[in-house]
């Protein structure tokens, strides 16, 4: 779409664009180009010498078991976060959509976790599940289940999944609620007249009509699990025990800033870049066309 009426000036548009362009040039494109460059170089930790090594960093990366392991960890983590986050939010939204009185109160009480910082969410859940003092391990112990996420990798994974899902539910909930409110009531009523009960109506009418929203949220939740949960992990498990909860983004940070392995960290950045680009393309190719509000 284009505007018919325009203003004429040779310098003004450049001046208006300048702040944004300077920032994306200096802090986005230049560093991204540097990451690409460093990913094909080997540099000592002091930055004194650089040597072009081609794809060696990438070969080392994929030969490294901990990196491949981190891929698996990330996959498990994002599938769990997306699956739980979406299904719980869908259930709450479907019920909230049914409520006639008090709907806004429920909505208000369910949306606020969006405002909680991921790092704070991590600290909250860490405190509740702290093995020796937390309230939940205490309750679990009384029914004979020993919780110690400092030793048990599966429990550590469970902890970060719960914290990540808790924080993301409100977001998914709002989108499902908007989607549900967009479904014409006449369709539901027609089905009810034909004798379909609520369960049947949900699976044959509501759920298929919500599928664009669900797919959109699937992509968004995977992006969230990949990139925005760093703070949750750093605040709660710090990738441990061992490397059991070290997702890709955590590993980039750890190798680059704690391990000072710049070539490997840059190569990991490039791999992540490819993943973001792929996810963004999927989001725009398939979502833009189908999602309607």
């Amino acid at each position, binding site marked *: 779409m284009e505007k018919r009426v325009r203003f004429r*000036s040779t310098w003004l548009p450049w001046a208006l664009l300048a702040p944004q362009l300077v920032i994306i040039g200096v*802090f986005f494109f230049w560093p991204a180009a540097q990451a690409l460059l460093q990913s094909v170089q080997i540099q000592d930790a002091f930055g004194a010498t650089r040597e072009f090594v081609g794809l060696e960093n990438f070969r080392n990366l994929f030969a490294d078991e901990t990196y491949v392991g981190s891929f698996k960890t990330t996959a498990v983590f994002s599938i769990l976060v997306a699956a739980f986050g979406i299904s719980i939010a869908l259930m709450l939204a479907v019920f909230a959509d049914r409520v006639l009185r008090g709907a806004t109160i429920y909505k208000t009480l369910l949306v606020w976790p969006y405002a909680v910082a991921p790092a704070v969410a991590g600290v909250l859940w860490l405190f509740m599940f702290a093995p020796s003092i937390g309230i939940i391990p205490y309750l679990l112990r009384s029914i004979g289940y020993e919780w110690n996420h400092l030793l048990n990798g599966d429990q550590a994974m469970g902890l970060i999944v719960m914290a990540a899902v808790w924080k993301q539910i409100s977001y998914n909930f709002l989108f499902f609620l908007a989607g549900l409110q967009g479904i014409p009531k006449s369709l539901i009523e027609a089905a009810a007249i034909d004798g379909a009960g609520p369960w049947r109506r949900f699976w044959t009418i509501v759920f298929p009509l919500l599928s664009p929203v669900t797919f959109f949220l699937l992509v968004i939740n995977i992006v969230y699990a990949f990139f925005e949960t760093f703070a949750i992990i750093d605040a709660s498990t710090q990738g441990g025990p061992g490397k059991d909860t070290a997702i890709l983004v955590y590993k980039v940070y750890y190798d680059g800033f704690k391990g000072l392995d710049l070539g490997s960290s840059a190569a990991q950045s490039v791999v992540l870049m490819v993943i973001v680009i792929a996810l963004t393309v999927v989001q725009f190719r398939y979502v833009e066309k189908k999602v309607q*509000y």
Partner: protein
Amino acid sequence: MVERRPALTVLTHLVLIIGVLIVAFPVYVTLVASTHTAQAIVQAPMPMIPGDQMLQNYAAVLVGSDAGAGSAAPVGRMMFVSLVSALTIALGKIAISLLSAFAIVYFRFPFRNFFFWAIFVTLMLPVEVRIGPTYEVVANLGMLNSYAGLTIPLIASATATFLFRQFFLTVPDELAEAARIDGAGPLRFFWDVLLPLSRTSIAALFVIQFIYGWNQYLWPLLVTTQEDMYPVVMGIKRMIAGGDAANDWNLIMATAILAMLPPAIVVLVMQRWFVKGLVETEK
């Protein structure tokens, strides 16, 4: 509702109430923990009813205390750093996005589309995929441990530019025409016509971007090394140092409550714009 089913209505409220309780439980535990002494909390099970140490705990964290294993920097200062950063990021993003969208929609100039796509592509370059080199740039510019370092690299915004562009395209051409006939220049038109029309979009974006700015974690972790430049979200992590029982959990939880308060208030007070902003920025 299509039909009356009392059993289903009861189930509906039951599920929603359970949902609300589960969602609220972690914060309730935090709130309770922030009102007890450190000793009371480390005795499993910790009390589930608020204690009487609330004022002491909050006063202690706001000015800083020496007890405990982790960092004991004053949280009052951290809240101030967070507030300045979040406001700068939110308002900065809105300002530069408004200007870029105005240039892209209302002017014709070489490389216009190229610039639009360049801004758009930054969506695919989150901090996480370029952390090392971005850190180097900021360090070389001498922006470590400064508000400039905490905010400027985060101010570019593809989503905001996109949103304002979409909105400007829906503004009737007649308005610009009328402004031109009346002798108003582009900046006058922008200030007196476009800006007032964009109020709702600006409010919606402000909510989303304020929360984004306040909740930043990875970036401050890289660019701040001095306690007096820690935002509260990051400072809270620094307070956890020892094992389970070695931390002053009452103070950490008081800090958590303080760190949650400002964005939660913004969401609750501006709920209408928040929902609008959330749905629109993702479109």
